């Protein structure tokens, strides 16, 4: 078993690792963007000063960088806040910037590279116009096709950036792609959102926060975000589950209401399998019913485990075909759940054509 997974699942404490196991953990944690996360876990466990010197240095280096990104994100958000407040509509912080605003424990050491915001669909065009007027712009490398793809078929605008800023801003009007088999009524999210004190922004309610992270991970290409996002989900479930007596029941009901039962199933089952999450029996029984048929569930478990397990000490210049195959199957699946078959065929054909066209001779 991957030593990183064993410490993330709390089967072993960080002080129990010997130097050669640390050598593997450092590699796996860097691949998974979890070095700074381990810094904070070691500090919590009171064992940081007892770790090998090289480990302390690597974890500290990553922690310093992450602190810098957190500060940069706060500054960026402060800069854009007046402009967003002018729009006069609710603005919900999503993912990393939301965890940071709430001071959730898993936020410490969590890398974040962009600012994700959710606004009502009716307002997105006027907010975009305000941003463009304030010098925010789109990545010049995006083609006309990419820009149109974002607008017509996704739940967000193309990422924007300010020339003086460090961070990308992603404006969403929904949590999932509107063309998929699952549709989600964004108005429900705004109704349940929680305002932040002394701030023009709000965050999703705890169940919605979990469901967003679950849909984001399990409906994206190749489980983008990977193990780090899975750790977010596990930590959220632990934190909210311990804090509110009826959290699990509200989560299950909310998943039904928002039509996100399948992502919830994958998130909870993976958190149990890989990261040692304890789920109350009655709740797990209910969530299990949200999964696919048994053979599909078994296949998906294998694919997800294969995909989320860090590659450890394997020689990257000779990466095997197993992960390639699981990646391809997950890629096909993610598109299958997001797009109707005809649109999917058109999109994949276009992407394949682009790839052939741009392949170096």
């Amino acid at each position, binding site marked *: 078993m991957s030593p990183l997974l064993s410490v993330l699942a709390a089967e072993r404490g960080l002080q129990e690792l*010997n*130097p*050669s196991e*640390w*050598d593997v953990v*450092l*590699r796996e944690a*860097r*691949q998974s963007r979890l070095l700074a996360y381990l810094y904070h876990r070691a500090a919590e466990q009171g064992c940081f000063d007892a770790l*090998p010197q*090289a*480990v*302390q*240095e*690597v974890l*500290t*280096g*990553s922690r*310093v*960088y992450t*602190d*810098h990104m957190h*500060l940069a994100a706060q500054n960026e958000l402060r800069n854009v806040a007046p402009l967003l407040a002018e729009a006069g509509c609710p603005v919900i912080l999503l993912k990393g910037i939301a965890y940071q605003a709430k001071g959730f424990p898993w936020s410490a050491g969590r890398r974040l590279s962009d600012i994700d915001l959710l606004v009502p669909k009716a307002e997105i065009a006027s907010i975009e116009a305000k941003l463009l007027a304030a010098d925010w712009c789109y990545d010049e490398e995006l083609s006309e096709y990419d820009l149109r793809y974002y607008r017509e078929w996704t739940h967000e605008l193309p990422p924007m950036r300010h020339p003086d800023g460090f961070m990308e801003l992603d404006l969403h009007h929904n949590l999932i792609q509107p063309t998929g088999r699952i549709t989600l009524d964004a108005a429900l999210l705004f109704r349940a959102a929680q305002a932040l004190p002394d701030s023009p922004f709000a965050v999703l309610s705890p169940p919605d926060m979990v469901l967003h992270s679950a849909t984001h991970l399990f409906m994206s290409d190749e489980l983008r975000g990977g193990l780090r996002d899975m750790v977010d989900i596990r930590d959220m479930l632990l934190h909210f589950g311990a804090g509110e007596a009826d959290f699990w029941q509200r989560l299950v009901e909310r998943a039904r209401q928002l039509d996100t039962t399948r992502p919830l199933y994958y998130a909870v089952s993976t958190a149990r399998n890989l990261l040692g999450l304890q789920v109350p029996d009655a709740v797990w029984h209910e969530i299990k019913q949200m999964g696919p048929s048994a053979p599909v569930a078994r296949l998906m478990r294998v694919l997800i485990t294969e995909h989320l397990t860090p*590659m450890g*000490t394997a*020689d*990257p*210049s000779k990466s095997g075909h197993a992960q390639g195959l699981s990646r391809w199957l997950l890629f096909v699946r993610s598109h299958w759940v997001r797009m109707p078959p005809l649109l999917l065929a058109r999109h994949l054909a276009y992407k394949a054509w682009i790839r052939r066209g741009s392949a170096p001779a």
Partner: protein
Amino acid sequence: MKLGELSQVELRRLAANGGLRYRSGPFNLQLRTELAPFLDTLQYMYPGAPLLDEAQHPCHFHITLNAVGGWRRWLRPQVQFWVDGFTPFDPYPLDQAFPMYEWGLNWCIGTTAHQNLMLHSAVVEKNGQGLILPAMPGSGKSTLCAGLVSRGWRLLSDEFGILRHSDGQLLPLPRAAPLKNASIPLMQVFAPDQRYGPRFDKTRKGLVVHLAPPPASLADQDLPATPRWIIFPRYSDGGVTQLVPQPRALAFTRLINNSFNYLVTLEQGFQSLTRLVHHCDCYQLENGSLEAAIEAVETLAEGGSQ
């Protein structure tokens, strides 16, 4: 045991199995490669590098350097650089594996080793006192650094001024210094006794020949130095050589721009950089020839150490 003490067979076996681990300055490195000519160059440039025992020393960086597979290898053989499974660069021509390794390692250090403040500077030392030579465009810091090293100064680094936050000491990172284009024949005439690596034609930075770190510098790589002088060299062909004192506030702002990670290290970076300029005499060194520049620095050092 040292890198230079391994037999060729043993070195290749270790490297192919991912078991080659050695220390470079403050960093533990693990290197996996099957490229025999590259390994020969590595051993030639760093014979004194201490090997590390896997059971004792986790590594800061795990690097793989191998030929790119696929049909293209027959047409145009290329080498790729992996760090912890990522490939941050486009492949290089296969025969440029050593420059790719050196630049790749610099990139790894510059983008992740934020536990220290890192200046883009050469650092040398004499009598326990460190001299920082910040890299500015057209400064000729690499040439001046190589020149001082050939006159007996200890090389800490040709590229990284690594400042430890806890005590403000400069940490050595003695590595092969990539001499470029016109500075190659200049150094080979000026310091013929130094060890030079193979010629790499047409790299992304032109013609490159590496100057090996002197054995004594490598042997003392665990020994930090106390910063004493900051000298901003500026070379102008045939110009007058003179040391001009530089106000500390100006040196401070110039070093902010010279740092790899001043902005990333936030308050700690500010504390370390202010302490550095407080403890150093700062100069601009206008110079027209290598010999005159070295003489100016040596005169200063002799006066300063009395």
